């Protein structure tokens, strides 16, 4: 497998600590471009901000494989100035408002520090306290003379950290996919032409992936993302039957999600590779949710697509948790799979 260690973790840390809200992915784009330039034959930033990089293999019968990871993360947009450093905001992407009150944020290109505040609990009656504060009841407070512009983006001010076997960070979804695609591009095997798509606006409707797929016109695609692990204990006891994925069980291969029935040949193929290489993996419980695969599969005349995710707990919150080993095994599985891809894999159904 490609090298996996401190350098990869450092790159993930760098990517997680910058802020790239859907539609404003510049900070991640900059890092991606720096990282991939020496390894790609061709790199372009397209009309909506995707970074699209290709690297050709050698020999005949090469398969064009699109590797996709989204650069954007959920966050906020400043929508109105209430004066004295207090701003109204809207959420960008699916954020549970209950994760917002009392959190630290950075706003704008200058990363102006601020906090999300609302009505103090002491000034509420008992009936008000049990209700969540909707986003329009919250404000971003930048301090008495703090300044932001309407339209500025904001993100959680969480700092990446390594703890034991885990990573605690914001936006593991999907910076962990971004680093994975960077590493696969750097160490691409010769039997495939890699079409690396670092996409924008996944969190608000898979918009970057759609045009990326239309540009590349690949033979097949793998969306690499991070999926929720709801593997907490059931409050009243009993077995958790709806965990989606579990931390520590390896890469999560998708079979079906809210928008995609993943290509069954590719699902089987990934399982076969994992078993042959002795790489742990898990099947994500079929159900809702989705990745860029939903847009890629439907692009052009249809593209055989599968999705692989590194599980994380506490999705779209200020701090998610993933296991380093799950990521390592994801990279190992995908690299081993790339090496084994042949035209026959997708020749017939």
């Amino acid at each position, binding site marked *: 497998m490609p090298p996996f260690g401190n350098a990869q973790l450092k790159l993930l840390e760098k990517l997680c600590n910058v802020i790239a809200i859907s539609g404003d992915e510049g900070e991640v784009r900059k890092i991606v471009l720096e990282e991939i330039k020496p390894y790609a034959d061709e790199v372009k930033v397209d009309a909506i901000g995707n970074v699209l990089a290709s690297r050709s293999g050698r020999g005949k019968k090469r398969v064009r494989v699109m590797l996709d990871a989204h650069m954007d993360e959920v966050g906020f947009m400043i929508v109105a100035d209430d004066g004295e450093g207090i701003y109204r905001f809207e959420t960008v992407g699916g954020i549970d408002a209950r994760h917002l009150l009392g959190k630290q944020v950075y706003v704008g290109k200058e990363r102006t520090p601020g*906090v999300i505040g609302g009505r103090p609990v002491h000034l509420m009656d008992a009936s008000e306290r049990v209700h969540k504060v909707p986003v329009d009841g919250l404000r971003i407070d930048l301090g008495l003379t703090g300044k932001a512009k309407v339209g500025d983006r904001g993100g959680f001010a969480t700092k990446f950290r390594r703890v034991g076997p885990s990573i605690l960070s914001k936006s593991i979804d999907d910076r962990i996919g971004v680093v994975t695609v960077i590493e696969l591009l750097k160490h691409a095997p010769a039997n495939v032409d890699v079409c690396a798509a670092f996409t924008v606006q996944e969190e608000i409707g898979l918009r970057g992936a759609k045009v990326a797929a239309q540009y590349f016109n690949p033979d097949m695609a793998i969306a690499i993302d991070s999926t929720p692990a709801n593997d907490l204990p059931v409050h009243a006891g009993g077995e958790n039957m709806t965990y989606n994925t579990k931390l520590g069980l390896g890469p999560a291969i998708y079979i079906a999600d809210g928008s995609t029935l993943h290509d069954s040949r590719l699902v089987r193929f990934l399982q076969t590779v994992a078993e042959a290489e002795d790489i742990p993996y898990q099947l994500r419980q079929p159900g809702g949710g989705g990745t860029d695969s939903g847009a890629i599969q439907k692009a052009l005349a249809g593209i055989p697509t599968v999705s692989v995710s590194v599980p994380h707990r506490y999705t779209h919150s200020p701090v998610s948790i993933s296991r380093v080993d799950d990521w390592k095994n994801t990279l190992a599985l995908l690299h081993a799979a790339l090496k084994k891809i042949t035209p026959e894999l997708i020749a017939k159904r």
Partner: protein
Amino acid sequence: MTDILPFLKSIISVSGISGHETPVANLIAEKWRPLVDEVTTSRVGSLHGLKRGSGKGSALSASKSKRPSIMIATHMDAIGMMVSKVEDGFLHITDVGGIDVRVLPGAQVTVHANSGEELPGVIAMPSAKLLPDSVNAGEVLDIDYLLVDTGLMPREVQKKVRVGDLVSFANQPLELAGDVISGHTLDNRASVAALTVCLEELQSKSHVWDVWAVATVQEETSYLGAYTSAFDLRPQIAIAVDGTFAKGPGANGWQTHSMGKGVGLCMGPNMHPFIHKKLTELADKLEIPWFMDVTASHSGTDAYPMQVSAEGIPTALVEFPLRYMHTPVEMVSMKDIQRTGRLLAEFIASLQADFVEKIIWE
């Protein structure tokens, strides 16, 4: 005037949950030692800094000191959480002090583990499918349903963490525009900072009265420190310093006051009207901006217990506006903290030996 911000940042960066104030008490003691004549610790852990006055003994004094004394109470304890159960590597928690459960999901915390380690963690909000049907899973979840995740493997957690281990907020202080600081535990370490400003100011002022600078324990749970220190020290006057509600998002009622616009002088049954009046007159004279705050019954501060300690103590309450009370992102204006410290110092310096005799409830 020295900059008190670095000290304030240092004391809101250590733990000191009610009943477990030692980490912060050590930092405060270190800061106060050069500013006072002696620092001692009460039987229940409150810090007593004594700065002796220049006056002679007063016949009316009932305190251990021969001179009249004033006690300034700033509570150093913090609200927090405690581990109530360890399950599959996750920690169930309960609250210590009046925590606002709405801020917990996604909050970063430190678990002060029985093993002696400080484990970073995050407060997890389980999805609806993991909660009983009786819980309205889309609304604010009670603390009983939340879990702390340390990112460690279950066997490690089992080894390191015990029921009763403390859990504190872990977010670092943020300096914001306009001389504003935000962080957890500004209620009430910002008062400790104001009292420290007062002690610094007193270095170059003469004062007749003895000064007891007190950092009290367990205000958030039972006022234990204020009750016991006021009894022990028997001051002739006691002043509590605490935050009051600042105007801000969702807070614009009569109880709220503009942050950065001055010192709050509170009146109401917990406060002695004469002391209150003297403070307002002094603030006017010195042109220290101040606002009138009122509390119709219980002030919810150390003023409440001190007033009825021993044979009763004339008590006042000095405040500064604080936003987002009992959240990890409380906010105060450093200007207000400096002003509070200065007013306290000026008041102490103004006290003459015969002041005690003038204190009449009217």
